[in-house]
């Protein structure tokens, strides 16, 4: 069976082609999805890619969240379809309330692009099962508004329920509360991640290939399902 993974293009999406490439390198079939279409063509999973959808105007992800495609994505995510939001995609997921918290301006007030070390703290989600628990990986990070914030109660709950999927190691690049780089919903099918695993899938163009695991994880999950 070929696994079909949809990658949504919003106006201003930038890493959509890169996410498609990562899906392809992982062995799945990337399917381009368009923000104006409610139809997501029976894909098995969806990636919301990085970029500056709607220029990041108002707030990152705030305008995209209301696009027709998101109506379908939100509904199916609630029914268990795996969804990965990377960077801008993570912001869309928070604005959609599929994930708690919000992503705000980096504490440095600068955009930051760097190779970032992470620890995978939950290898049980749909998107991380190919990693070992607590595996350390390096993938690029690039954002201007990547500081994850939530109230104390939410943060405690995320930690208690094992929903912190990845944490920054060595350097907290944006001031995220509790060094949080990525989280999941309670069911583990929806994951939001600030760093960019799709830019660490080829040794030639990234810091390594340690990001590929996100895309192979979903493949394995869907094939085994």
């Amino acid at each position, binding site marked *: 069976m070929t696994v079909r993974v949809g990658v949504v293009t919003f106006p201003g999406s930038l890493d959509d082609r890169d996410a498609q490439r990562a899906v392809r390198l992982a062995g799945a079939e990337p399917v381009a999805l368009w923000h104006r279409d409610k139809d997501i063509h029976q894909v098995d999973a969806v990636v919301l890619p990085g970029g500056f959808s709607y220029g990041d105007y108002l707030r990152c992800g705030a305008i995209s969240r209301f696009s027709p495609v998101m109506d379908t994505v939100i509904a199916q995510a609630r029914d268990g379809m795996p969804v990965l939001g990377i960077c801008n995609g993570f912001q869309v997921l928070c604005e959609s309330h599929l994930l708690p918290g919000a992503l705000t301006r980096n504490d440095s007030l600068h955009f930051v692009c760097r190779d970032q070390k992470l620890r995978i703290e939950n290898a049980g989600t749909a998107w991380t099962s190919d990693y070992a628990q607590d595996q350390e990986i390096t993938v690029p990070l690039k954002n201007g508004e990547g500081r994850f914030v939530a109230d104390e109660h939410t943060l405690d709950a995320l930690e208690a329920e094992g929903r912190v999927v990845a944490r920054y190691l060595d350097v907290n690049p944006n001031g995220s509360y509790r060094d949080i780089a990525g989280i999941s919903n309670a069911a583990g099918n929806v994951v939001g991640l600030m760093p960019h695993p799709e830019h660490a899938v080829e040794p030639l*163009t990234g810091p390594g290939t340690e990001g590929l695991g996100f895309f192979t994880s979903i493949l394995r999950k869907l094939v085994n399902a």
Partner: protein
Amino acid sequence: MSQKHLDTVSHAAETPDAEQPWAELGLKQDEYQRIRDILGRRPTGAELAMYSVMWSEHCSYKSSKVHLKQFGEKAPASDAMLVGIGENAGVVDVGQGYAVTFKVESHNHPSYIEPYQGAATGIGGIVRDILAMGARPVAVMDPLRFGAADHPDTKRVLPGVVAGIGGYGNCLGLPNIGGEIVFDPCYQGNPLVNALCVGVMKHEDIHLAKASGAGNQVILYGARTGGDGIGGVSVLASETFSDSGPAKRPAVQVGDPFQEKLLIECTLEVFAEKLVVGIQDLGGAGLSCATSELASAGSGGMRVELDRVPLRDATLSPEEILMSESQERMCAIVEPGKVARFLEICEKWDVIATVIGEVTDGERLEIFWHGEQVVDVPPRTVAHEGPTYQRPYARPDWQDELQADAPTAERLKRPVSGDELKAALLTLAAHPNQADKSWVTSQYDRYVLGNTVLAQPEDSGMIRIDEETNLGVAIATDGNGRYAKLDPYTGAQLALAEAYRNVAATGAKPLAVTDCLNFGSPEDPAVMWQFAEACRGLADACQVLGTPVTGGNVSLYNQTGETAIHPTPVVGVLGVIDDVNRRTPMAFAEEGQLIYLLGDTEDELGGSAWAQVAHDHLGGLPPKVDLERERLLGEILIAASRDGMIDAAHDLSDGGLAQALVESCLKGGRGARIVVPQGTDPFVLLFSESAGRAIVAVPRSEELRFTDMCGARGLPAARIGVVDGDSIEIQGHFSVALDELRTAHLETFPALLG
């Protein structure tokens, strides 16, 4: 203003003596007279607006044209050149059916007034130029010059410029793969913000800016037109700042990178469906430029209904609409049968598109405002036949004195002891010009698009353009205003030589050149001489290296009062590499590899970084240029990369061998043990800036093959050491730990800028 009496063509004919603000618009008396002669009457207000912006220095190249001609006349024959100077950007054949277009432009004056928006719109403008050729933009670079690093105004200008370049480029999704950051007090009131963009297309996708085919429709698409930047780029970049700032202060333009991203995607889709006959971006001089250039380059005339232009501000007059430099707009010529599809694609991308006119079989550019004619001109006289000046130039009287002031050992005290040499190396590595630039470059996305093979800090940026075959291109930009001040002819050649060497060092074969010529006021004969010399030097050198100039940009009037910046030709070289897997990085990564110094080192410290850092000295002659040697060095570096003989290479330039070792060692996290060859002065070895040199790391298994090749080709290659340990050790003189070096090198920018 629109309520005012409309100055129509017939009204102009009836009122020959009406007063007109030609001087305020920057025209000279004789230029105004010439417009009257061309038209056989006084121009209308709208015509005057068009001529004044199009005949400005920025748009007409009236002072520089006579010198730029050489780039065409002396151009080396090159099979690679598909489109040359005169179009929005040159196009180069890189094989496998691919073509690459690239160009560097300046946005100096706007970036001084409003650093963020000035720099941001600089990126926006050059990206549209590349797009207008039919190419998908794939990367940007940003050669920058600022005043003294510790000057308070630098703390205003630099962070704003960097945030603007990042803000716009990141939001467009274009990786930033290189650039330059140089500080010198001469740029205090005139920072240089040059921006380069490179784009990729298939040969058959090349588009040109011309309007032909009577009946074809003129479509304006992109942002609405507003009152911002009226005459901004053109007028602003065509005058000198007085001490109190610019005399005219036109509204600043604000960029909308999101709109530009939509414009890119929409334009590429329109190209893919072959819906476009001709296309032009709107940059300096806005609609005046786009309509007159399209009509001038095409076969017929053009008729435009100006009142159809979508406005952001309903009160704009026809003159203002013609002069507005609102960003993120393009103008396309489309056959009538394809208009509907064109508009559909624009709608898909939420891009406003409006038919504003059509190509006629006449010979005039005619513009109407609510049915009344406000412009009736021969388009060539606006776009391509503006005034040209043979400005007087003369070698300045201080040039001899400057060149006589050579940095000899008698004149400038040189470090001798091991401790002195070590201190000199550390000071140099920590000086803002040589220090680590990641405070700046970490604000730029270098990963987006997933094809970045090399990015800063490397000798050149490298982009993969075909995922199947691994075909790639490399680009480097270089320029050294200090060298050019000492000798503009040689300085321009050194800029080319350095960029050429940087491209070759990464394993790519240099093919073509773009240049941005940043100078002071052309009305000063000394500056004009610098300009003439630099053009002559660059054109001559391109001939020898076989790399034609494909396009570029001139920025004049970079001066405050009587004081001009150092003449600063910035040269970009584009190279091709068949397999990006074969690229050569600059990091020393493998313990035990042998370090070879290629080329000859002489006592050449005129204009050097050492003279600047240690003695704040600028005098003497710049290093000599030997272009045949550059070419040979390049061939060796490319062959060694292709055949796997070297694992690292780094060109030697400012700061000489010392700085090159610092960079290669820190990048790879490995030390080096260096033996100063018998009879060599360690100071000269470390700090001379002789051109035509590089260091390479050779695996021991390849040593014989590599030295045989150098020997057979006659390139001096000296084994000077080995990659080893965690310090740089100059045996018998000093040793400096990488940690100490790293601290010195990395902490400068954070300390200056927070």
